[in-house]
């Protein structure tokens, strides 16, 4: 045998033990070097100069409206801190009366922090007043370990709430702290929890910096490590440039008053959101500083759910505002043409059930059916379409899926399909009769106001469906870096004739003999559709979707009033007032001029 290809076990053991012994000698040698040769040097360093890392939190990015006005700002605030290592527990009562916190609470905070570095200041209360700061400064020598930090907190310089748009920041929960894989957050950090604050958290928060300082054995700061060469400067957060119109937002919130419901207005040409209101709303200031636990509990447990964003997170039956969808689907699938007439008596019987209408209209084409909001016409369309076409055409207008609005936790709504009914009722266990109600936007159909406004915008733009969005641009003023915002657009493939017919119907709703004659405006041509959605849990929901000007759309609106009754009574006047206000450059107020007339669907 040539060379060493066969080795006895002893030899292998010698090799292994040899390698191990050599490695252990290396470790020993290094230990001797550190602990004997360099002991003095390291000993001194450990007595005097230990390095500590101080985290520096950057200022959060601002939120700015379409005219360049800051609508979410920062303000400096003082946070009372206690450093356990230096703190004398007999001072707890004095600190408590000073800051207005229960002494028990301070004891709890100190007990909670026992697992962490005793030299790290613990945040006791955010946003303390300047008088307290002066008192701490004057009694510095006596109040050992009591100090304060400067932090920036949110400040809203507005006459409106926009609570569901902005959202609030809160201390990061232990759960998200554990689940976070990027090792960025620390206990006590504020993190965007709802709204834009959450959706754009990574852009808004910036990047933390850190300083390395030398501290002595008593934890006192001696100086900067390595002359600060290893320090990392924090990077401020990026600002969000939104398409919101502050004045329109304020106006819309005022119009909704104390009612429950939702308003959303977009520029149909771009998908940019102009205002977004969900009522009841709340005051974001409740979440700032040391949050008021009682108020927050009240908000979380309130039966009307004020924290819920009704524009994006709730689904409702759309009622008659759905009829344009049916008309488009029926025409595009070839079931009817724009001129086909259908007989519309005062009621419709399917199987042994009779479905009512508000009146008989004779034989009418689709434009007239939208104008007068005939139910029988659309009961019949529902049946003609069948569930497959019903689902597929509605899906083209974004129903049953998220619009992609830049707010968290958007609902998909509910758009029934063959599979859905098979699952709920069983295969062949459900009748085509379900399609009768679905034809007029009732039954097992759920849409959100943001889906409705996007659908309305797509109709007035002849099928151009644009992802609705609030943020136009993300710009970091300290780095000069602009992050592009991607907006998805698609052209719905349908003949222009069909859009023309539907738009004509919507025009006549307001300007013909239709259901919303009360909101006709002499300066701006409004087109739209009312809806009054039945609802098993109480009064009807009042809907209106529309756009203006009719011949050159610049704004599309959806208004929903929960349990507010007829569409033309509650929702239509508010929608019209918002459109006229916006088109007049935020000057005209036509809300009170809308003559209340006979109730109509």
């Amino acid at each position, binding site marked *: 045998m040539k060379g*060493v290809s066969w080795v006895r*076990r002893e030899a292998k053991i010698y090799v292994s033990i040899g390698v191990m012994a050599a490695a252990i000698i290396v470790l020993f040698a290094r230990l001797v070097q550190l602990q004997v040769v360099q002991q003095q040097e390291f000993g001194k360093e*450990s007595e005097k100069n230990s*390095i500590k890392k101080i985290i520096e939190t950057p200022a959060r990015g601002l939120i700015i409206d379409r005219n360049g006005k800051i609508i979410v700002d920062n303000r400096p605030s003082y946070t009372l801190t206690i450093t356990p290592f230096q703190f004398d527990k007999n001072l707890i009562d004095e600190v408590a009366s000073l800051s207005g916190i229960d002494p028990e609470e301070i004891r709890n905070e100190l007990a909670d922090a026992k697992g962490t*570095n005793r030299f790290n200041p613990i945040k006791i209360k955010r946003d303390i007043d300047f008088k307290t700061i002066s008192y701490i400064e004057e009694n510095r020598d006596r109040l050992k370990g009591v100090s304060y930090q400067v932090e920036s907190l949110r400040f809203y310089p507005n006459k409106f709430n926009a609570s569901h748009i902005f959202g609030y920041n809160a201390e990061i929960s232990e759960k998200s702290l554990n689940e976070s894989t990027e090792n960025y957050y620390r206990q006590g950090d504020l993190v965007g929890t709802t709204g834009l604050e959450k959706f754009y958290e990574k852009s808004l928060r910036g990047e933390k910096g850190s300083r390395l300082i030398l501290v002595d054995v008593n934890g006192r700061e001696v100086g900067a490590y390595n002359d600060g060469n290893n320090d990392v400067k924090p990077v401020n957060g990026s600002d969000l440039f939104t398409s919101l119109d502050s004045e329109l937002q304020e106006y819309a919130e005022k119009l909704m008053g104390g009612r429950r419901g939702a308003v959303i207005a977009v520029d149909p040409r771009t998908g940019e959101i102009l205002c977004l209101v969900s009522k009841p709303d709340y005051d974001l200031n409740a979440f700032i500083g040391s949050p008021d636990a009682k108020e927050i509990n009240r908000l979380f447990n309130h039966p009307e759910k004020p924290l819920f964003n009704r524009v994006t997170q709730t689904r409702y039956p759309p009622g008659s505002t759905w009829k344009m969808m049916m008309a488009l689907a029926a025409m595009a699938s070839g079931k009817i043409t724009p001129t086909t007439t259908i007989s519309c008596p005062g009621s419709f019987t399917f199987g042994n059930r009779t479905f009512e209408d508000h009146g008989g209209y004779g034989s009418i084409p689709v434009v007239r059916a939208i104008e007068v909001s005939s139910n029988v016409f659309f009961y019949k369309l529902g049946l003609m379409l069948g569930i497959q076409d019903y689902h597929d055409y509605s899906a083209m207008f974004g129903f049953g899926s998220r619009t992609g609005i830049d707010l968290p936790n958007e609902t998909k709504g509910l758009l029934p399909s063959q599979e859905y009914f098979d699952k709920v009722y069983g295969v062949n266990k459900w009748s085509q009769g379900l399609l009768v109600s679905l034809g007029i936007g009732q039954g097992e159909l759920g849409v959100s106001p943001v889906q409705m406004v996007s659908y309305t915008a797509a109709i007035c733009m002849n099928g151009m469906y644009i992802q609705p969005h609030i943020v136009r641009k993300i710009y970091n003023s300290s780095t000069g870096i602009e992050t592009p915002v991607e907006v998805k657009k698609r052209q719905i493939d349908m003949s222009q004739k069909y859009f023309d017919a539907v738009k004509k119907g919507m025009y006549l709703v307001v300007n013909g003999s239709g259901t919303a004659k009360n909101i006709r405006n002499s300066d701006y041509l409004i087109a739209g559709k009312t809806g009054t959605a039945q609802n098993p849990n109480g009064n009807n929901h009042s809907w209106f979707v529309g756009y203006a000007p009719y011949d050159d759309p610049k704004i599309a609106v959806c208004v929903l009033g929960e349990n507010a009754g007829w569409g033309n009574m509650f929702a239509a006047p508010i929608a019209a007032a918002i459109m006229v206000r916006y088109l007049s450059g935020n000057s005209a107020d036509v809300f009170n001029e809308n003559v209340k007339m006979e109730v109509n669907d």
Partner: protein
Amino acid sequence: MDRKFFDRFDITLFLSVIGLIVIGIFAIYSATQSSVNNSGFYVKQMTFAIIGLVMVVGITYLPPRYISSLSYYAYGLALVLLLLVLVFGRTINGNKSWFYIAGFGIQPSEFAKVATVMAVSNFFYKGDEDNQKFSVTQLLTATGIVLLPAILIKLENDTGTTLVMLSFIIPMFFFAGVSPFLLFAVVTTVAAAVLAFINIYYFAVFLALLILALYFFKKHWLLSAGVFVINVIAGYSVSFFYSKLQPYQQKRIMAVFDPASDPLGSGYNVIQSKVAIGSGGLFGKGFLQGSQTQLRFIPEQWTDFIYCMIGEEFGLLGAGVVILLFGIVIYRLFTNAYLSRNRYMMLACVGFASLFFFHMFINVGMTIGIAPVIGIPLPLVSNGVSSLMSFLLMVGIGMNTYRHKDIFLS
């Protein structure tokens, strides 16, 4: 007890292991005593140490056949657990490698190390003759047995444990009878790549030594030249690929080899741990008296950086005793491998010895600044139930090997 008992019971291994565990419990107590949340850690560690030592004695008396026949089942179970943890596991410090059952954190990857060594031993076990011949397919299969769990662990984002999984391939192949020249070629290629990356002069010296070694192997000159060329290519291609990386990626790789280049990240811990150990001196600052550790300049000092605690409070004496005890444990595992007439047990002991060695060398080396910062525990000493139990499982099989050293399996 009479001599006969000690003839069958590896008391040296057993006592060394107990010594390491006891030092570990003292160090954990010292590292956590000022903390409310973690002050119970040493009690938990002590409880499981006792359960584990009972388990060690139990395994010692098992018939070796049982152990080898369990190998593939243990391996299969380990794979299932690794898959489950990927789906249902909880993320801690960025690693998705934990199960929580009734408040206890369990890390399947710790168990997977033992099971994989057992599976490889069983795969190579074909009768008790040394130095069998293996086909290329067999070698690739054996490598696959190790890579499969290693990849799953990498998917959990646990790079440290993934490297640990690769540490025992070469020693086990060597003892199984794979051609030393083949292993030499593989090892030198990896070494060439690493050295060329660290410093071009190291690489040059390495190539000179390589020529010398190849001469002593006395293989055909073409074969030797081939190995040399592969080494040179490995060295150069590393520098080439490194230069193609983005600066931030280069920085991340640099930080592993040179922690000082990243003083805010891993470098921070190394600076602090060197100060802690260095300031300990010959006899240390005394139990509970370490200013670096008691002032918590070192994060997680009860797990991966526990050696700082020992170095600072017990000095060179304590730090040296720990290395010595590890030396004895590893030495005993190798001697038991040597003594065993049972090839399965021989291979398993070699695998376990490699695991102990790799863990100890990297962990201690990282705290004294001569090894890259890889988050792996110090066996038997670091706080952590999964790690403690899996290393005691290895000790148990090592003890069993000694007891049954004269018994052939086949």
